């Protein structure tokens, strides 16, 4: 039953995840932690951390949440549910999108989506860095990593490593 619920919900998220995984992190956290209570806020943050630190698409965070909820079957189901509906859409839309390269509605749509994606990614960062009540130490780590990313152009793994060190010192 849990697996079905997981599949349906991640499938729905798949279709609204404009901007990719970061956009739906707040919603995943809301559903998995607040509504269902499958993970604690701390566990959610740690699953996210492992997903970020491991190589590969960040969509794999979905499989870690699935694993926590329902073991290995949960991991597979969560990943496929999150990818499949969007993949079907991409499969159909790709050619259409090329054909309407110069259509005015295409430009309008692109401009409309940009601010929504920015807001969703920003919300994702805020929600993940604020698992329970606001904690200045987590915000300091997140702020430093954001600043470092904007100031120097290096592999983001360095920011994650820095976050780990700050975590060991502060938390």
């Amino acid at each position, binding site marked *: 039953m849990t697996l079905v619920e997981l599949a349906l919900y991640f499938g729905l998220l798949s279709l*609204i995840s404009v901007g990719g995984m970061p956009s739906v992190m707040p919603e995943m956290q809301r559903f998995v932690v*607040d509504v269902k209570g499958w993970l604690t806020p701390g566990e959610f943050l740690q699953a996210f951390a492992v997903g970020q630190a*491991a190589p590969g698409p960040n969509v794999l965070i979905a499989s870690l949440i699935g694993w926590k909820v329902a073991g290995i079957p949960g991991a597979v189901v969560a990943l496929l549910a999150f990818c499949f509906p*969007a993949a079907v859409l991409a499969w159909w839309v*790709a050619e259409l999108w090329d054909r309407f390269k110069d259509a005015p509605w295409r430009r309008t749509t*692109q401009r409309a989506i940009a*601010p929504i994606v920015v807001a969703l990614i920003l919300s*994702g960062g805020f929600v993940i860095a604020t698992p329970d009540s606001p904690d200045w130490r*987590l915000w300091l780590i997140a702020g430093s990593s954001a600043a470092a990313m904007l100031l120097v152009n290096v592999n983001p793994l360095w920011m994650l490593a820095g976050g*780990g060190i700050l975590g060991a010192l502060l938390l």
Partner: protein
Amino acid sequence: MNVAPPKKLGELFFGFLWIGARSFGGVLPWAYRTMVEERRWITHADFTETIGLCQFLPGPNIGNASIVLGKRWFGLAGSVVAFLGLMALPFVWVLALFAVYNDFSANPLVKAIVTGVGAAGAGLFVGTAVKLGRALAKKPAALVLIAACFLCVAVARFSLVAVIPAGLLLAWLAARRDWL
């Protein structure tokens, strides 16, 4: 520069497997290096255009790119093979890493480090949002939309299932009036 798409499904599979295998710190740069620079499957312009489409579509960006490119070269079989190649190794890595972590998660130091890594990862999201948002900073309507959307999602914790359709509709109307 001469580019030629992969000739066999096996080539496609191992290309994407190679992307997934070493994509520490984000897949996009490795996808670029593998497909544009090393194997010369597509041109820079083509890559940028495809990623642009995939960023606009819902779903994992790079996952969608594997679907779109696989389809272009080999049809349905190509999409399936490229997607599986991309996900296979990272899926194993991430579960293995999480299994190791779960064994040590009772250790307060390990927990603190991983929590710190998570907070830094959240910071990368904030940084990405700022980078993308810079292009919109001169448009008041965009800033209002971003702020409203942020308040609804991050502070009030409304469901995205409601916020995204409403936000997109408002944004689309604004874009049509040239406010965005």
